C-alpha cells in the first residue's frame, strides 16, 4: 500500500471523517472502556499524530487508518496497564516501612509496573522472530489452563514434545522475570501456575 503524507488540514479532515469509526473500533475492541473514555483516547491519539504531522514528514507505512487504529489500541493498552501496576501493588505485601526505605520501595514498584505483560509480549515476539510458533501455541494453551496431555492431543504432537516446549518457554520467561522481579511476586505466580508435577 502506498501512503501519502498529509498537511495538517488534510489530516484534520481525515480525522473528522473517521473519528466515529475509530471510536467504534475502540469500543468494540476494549469493552471495558465506555464511550467517553473511547472519545478521550481517540482524541489523544489525534493530538499526538497531529503534532507529528506538523513537525516532521510523517507518512505511515501501511495507511493512515491502520496507523490510527494501531495507535489508539496502544494508548488503550497503556491505560489498562495502569491497572496491572495497581494490581501488583495491591496483591504484593507491603515491605517493612523504615526511614529511607520508602523512596527505594517506590522505585522498585515502579520498575514492576508493566513487568508481566512486557515479558509475555517479548516472549511472543521472540517466538515470531525465530519461527517458534509451536512453542508459542503450547505455552499459550498452558497459560490458558490446558493440561499437557490435552495440549498434546489438540496439537497432535507427543507428550514429550509438549513437555520440552513448556520447559523451554518457562525457562526463558522465568529467566527474564528473575532479572526484574523485585518482589519475587511474578515468579511466585508462575511457580503456582506451573507446578512441577503436571
Amino acid at each position, binding site marked *: 500500500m502506498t501512503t501519502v503524507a498529509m498537511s495538517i488540514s488534510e489530516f484534520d479532515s481525515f480525522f473528522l471523517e473517521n473519528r466515529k469509526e475509530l471510536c467504534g473500533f475502540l469500543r468494540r475492541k476494549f469493552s471495558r472502556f*465506555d464511550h467517553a473514555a473511547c472519545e478521550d483516547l481517540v482524541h489523544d491519539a489525534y493530538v499526538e499524530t497531529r503534532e507529528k504531522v506538523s513537525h516532521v514528514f510523517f507518512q505511515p507505512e501501511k495507511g493512515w487508518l491502520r496507523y490510527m487504529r494501531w495507535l489508539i489500541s496502544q494508548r488503550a493498552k497503556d491505560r489498562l496497564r495502569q491497572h496491572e501496576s495497581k494490581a501488583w501493588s495491591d496483591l504484593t505485601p507491603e515491605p517493612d516501612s523504615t526511614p529511607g526505605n520508602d523512596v527505594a520501595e517506590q522505585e522498585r514498584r515502579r520498575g514492576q509496573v508493566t513487568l508481566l505483560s512486557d515479558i509475555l509480549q517479548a516472549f511472543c515476539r521472540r517466538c515470531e522472530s525465530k519461527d517458534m*510458533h509451536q512453542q508459542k501455541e503450547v505455552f499459550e494453551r498452558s497459560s490458558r489452563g490446558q493440561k499437557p496431555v490435552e495440549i498434546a492431543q489438540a496439537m497432535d504432537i507427543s507428550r514429550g514434545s509438549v513437555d520440552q516446549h513448556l520447559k523451554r518457554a518457562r525457562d526463558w520467561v522465568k529467566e527474564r522475570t528473575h532479572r526484574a522481579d523485585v518482589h519475587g511476586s511474578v515468579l511466585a505466580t508462575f511457580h503456582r501456575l506451573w507446578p512441577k508435577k503436571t
Partner: protein
Amino acid sequence: MTAQQQKPQFHSLGEVVTWVIEDLGAMCPSLERLEKYCRTPDAPEFSDIRYHVGEAGCHLCGEDLSATGQT
C-alpha cells in the same frame, strides 16, 4: 462527564495473569503477522494464530481482523 472504564477486580495473582492475556493482549501476535494470517489462514506456520483467534477466541485480534478485512 468524566471518562470512565470498568475497573477489573483481582483477588489473586493468577487472575492478573489471565487478565493480562485476555484484556491486554499479552499473547497476541504482531499486527503484521496477523495480517499475513488473514491472507492465508490455513498456512501451517499460522497454527498458533488459528488457536489464538479461533479456539481461544481472542476478541482483540478478532476486531483487528475485522478492521483489516474492511480496509
